[in-house]
């Protein structure tokens, strides 16, 4: 025991204040449990500080500038200049407002907040180290714990984030200048979002990707729209190459890549952004003190309530594995909190949506056509291309489509794939349709406002029923 150690007791100890942890803490407190939330760094976690929020703020700003600068067809002539430092300030302000809000919401709901790093010291105890070294340690005895320690960017050999020229997504989002030449390693969603953003802000961007296309988990026609738009923005792609080495040069670095056959290429850059995936954070936790062990990849395995191998210890969010998304983390947090409160909660959502904030946006929910067929459904698919949408034409944004996947003959909506401006918003309706067990006829029978992009959801449903008005039916 360290000097000055104090032991307090709590019903629920939440470790980590990201969208998994803070949401769990608030919901548990709303259920009248005594809740303690420990965060070592910043409330809101990766998402609010170094992920979802700053990335979307930069994407929005880049869009405003880019759109105005490329609207000559609309009679709009502008030559927007971006002050990257001022942009960074504004973005930081957005982040501060939200993280401040999270802190206030926690307090208003009666959550006890502790700043420090938590580690287990037994099955029902944890020790919290405050800022200083060893000083101000405290112990907490808990009935239940929720581990929500999140994830961090994976490092690639020879590309240590400690180097100034090597950026993690966090570094990229914190940048105060726009590099002239940016090499992005990895064409997953984070790589694609940030490539698009920096290209729009004026960087020359080259994307190096081991696989042979962008966004591995998406269907070909989805990828195609986003890849060609990225190419129109001047982004260059080198597929089938992995980043193998880095050389310092007088005015920047060189990124060396290698194909499977050992063929090398070299890309000069000011900065290289490595975005090859994220790994769970469990190393600070001393899991073994509680009797827990992560799986081979470092994740904590959980059941439908979020329980780990210990009935009273839950894990939510990125540390508990796929889908590593903020809204999944929050839902897991809610389910864990409600379970601890004795409610019949479960992770039984039919579908977790996911969005990529590229240009245009991608959003999907539920099953693709291939997945539905593989699961044994008699799949029927309906589509509405955006070029047939009045709203898309008035936005001068006609690349993309809305697709809806359903079962035949029941008509149950099973999934949707949307590539469109505001796809991230449009997917909400399809998500509700899936959860409600809505049929194509239900979606088609719901009056949609004209002129909107959401009409395309209705129209896709009609198309699946062979009776679309604004597209030819197959």
């Amino acid at each position: 025991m360290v000097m000055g150690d104090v032991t307090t007791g709590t019903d629920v100890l939440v470790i980590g204040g990201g969208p998994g942890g803070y949401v769990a803490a608030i919901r548990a407190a709303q259920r009248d449990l005594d809740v303690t939330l420990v965060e070592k760094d910043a409330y809101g976690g990766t998402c609010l500080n170094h992920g979802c929020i700053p990335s979307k703020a930069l994407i929005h700003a880049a869009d405003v500038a880019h759109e105005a600068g490329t609207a000559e067809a609309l009679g709009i002539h502008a030559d927007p200049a971006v002050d990257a430092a001022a942009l960074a300030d504004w973005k930081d302000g957005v982040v501060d407002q939200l993280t401040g809000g999270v802190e206030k919401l926690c307090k208003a709901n009666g959550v006890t907040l502790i700043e420090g790093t938590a580690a287990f010291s037994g099955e029902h105890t944890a020790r919290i180290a405050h800022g200083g070294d060893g000083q101000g340690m405290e112990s907490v005895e808990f009935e239940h714990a929720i581990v929500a320690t999140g994830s961090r960017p994976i490092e690639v050999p020879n590309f240590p984030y400690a180097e100034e020229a090597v950026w993690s997504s966090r570094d990229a989002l914190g940048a105060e200048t726009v590099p002239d030449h940016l090499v992005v390693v990895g064409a997953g969603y984070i790589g694609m979002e940030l490539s698009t953003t920096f290209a729009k802000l004026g960087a020359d961007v080259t994307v190096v990707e081991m696989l042979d296309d962008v966004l591995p988990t998406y269907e070909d026609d989805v990828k195609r729209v986003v890849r060609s738009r990225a190419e129109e923005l001047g982004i260059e792609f080198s597929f089938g190459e992995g980043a193998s080495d880095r050389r310092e040069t007088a005015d920047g670095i060189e990124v060396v890549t290698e194909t499977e056959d050992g063929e090398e290429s070299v890309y000069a850059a000011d900065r290289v952004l490595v975005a090859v995936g994220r790994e769970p954070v469990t190393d600070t936790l001393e899991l073994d003190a509680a009797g827990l062990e992560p799986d081979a990849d470092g994740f904590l395995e959980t059941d439908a309530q979020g329980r780990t191998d210990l009935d009273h210890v839950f894990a939510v969010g990125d540390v508990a594995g796929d889908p590593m998304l903020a809204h999944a983390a929050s839902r897991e947090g809610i389910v864990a909190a409600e379970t601890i409160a004795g409610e019949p909660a479960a992770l039984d959502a039919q579908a977790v949506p996911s969005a990529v904030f590229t240009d245009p946006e991608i959003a999907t929910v539920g099953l693709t056509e291939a997945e539905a067929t593989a699961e044994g459904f008699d799949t029927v698919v309906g589509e509405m291309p955006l070029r047939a949408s009045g709203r898309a034409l008035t936005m001068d944004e006609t690349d993309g489509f809305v697709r809806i996947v359903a079962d035949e003959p029941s008509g149950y909506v099973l999934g949707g794939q949307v590539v469109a401006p505001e796809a991230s918003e449009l997917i909400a309706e399809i998500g509700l349709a899936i959860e409600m067990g809505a049929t194509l006829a239900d979606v088609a029978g719901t009056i949609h406002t004209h002129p909107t992009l959401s009409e395309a959801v209705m129209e896709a449903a009609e198309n699946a029923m062979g009776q679309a008005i604004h597209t030819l039916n197959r």
Partner: protein
Amino acid sequence: ADTTDVATGRVFAPPSVRTAAREAGVDPASVSGSGPGGRITAADLRAAIDARARSTDDDGRTQAAPEDAGTADRSRSATTSGGGDSSGTADRDRTLAMPATRRIARE
């Protein structure tokens, strides 16, 4: 469940159920809804139509089960695809019950 728990007597039923009810000549307000708060599902409507067909046909307008209502079987057990999922969600049954209904079922 009651036909409806809602004070105004408004009938809560999805568009496809309303259409199927019209097709079968059934007044949705006369159907007993099994959903939360008495919401009428396709299965409820089918049951009402079957019941009507079994009772002596009053006006000779008995019809075959309407296309929409005849497909209401919600008990399937395919699984969601959760490749690489370690959060325990990979083996969930696709029950096709609405979120609120699933919760009530668990309680």
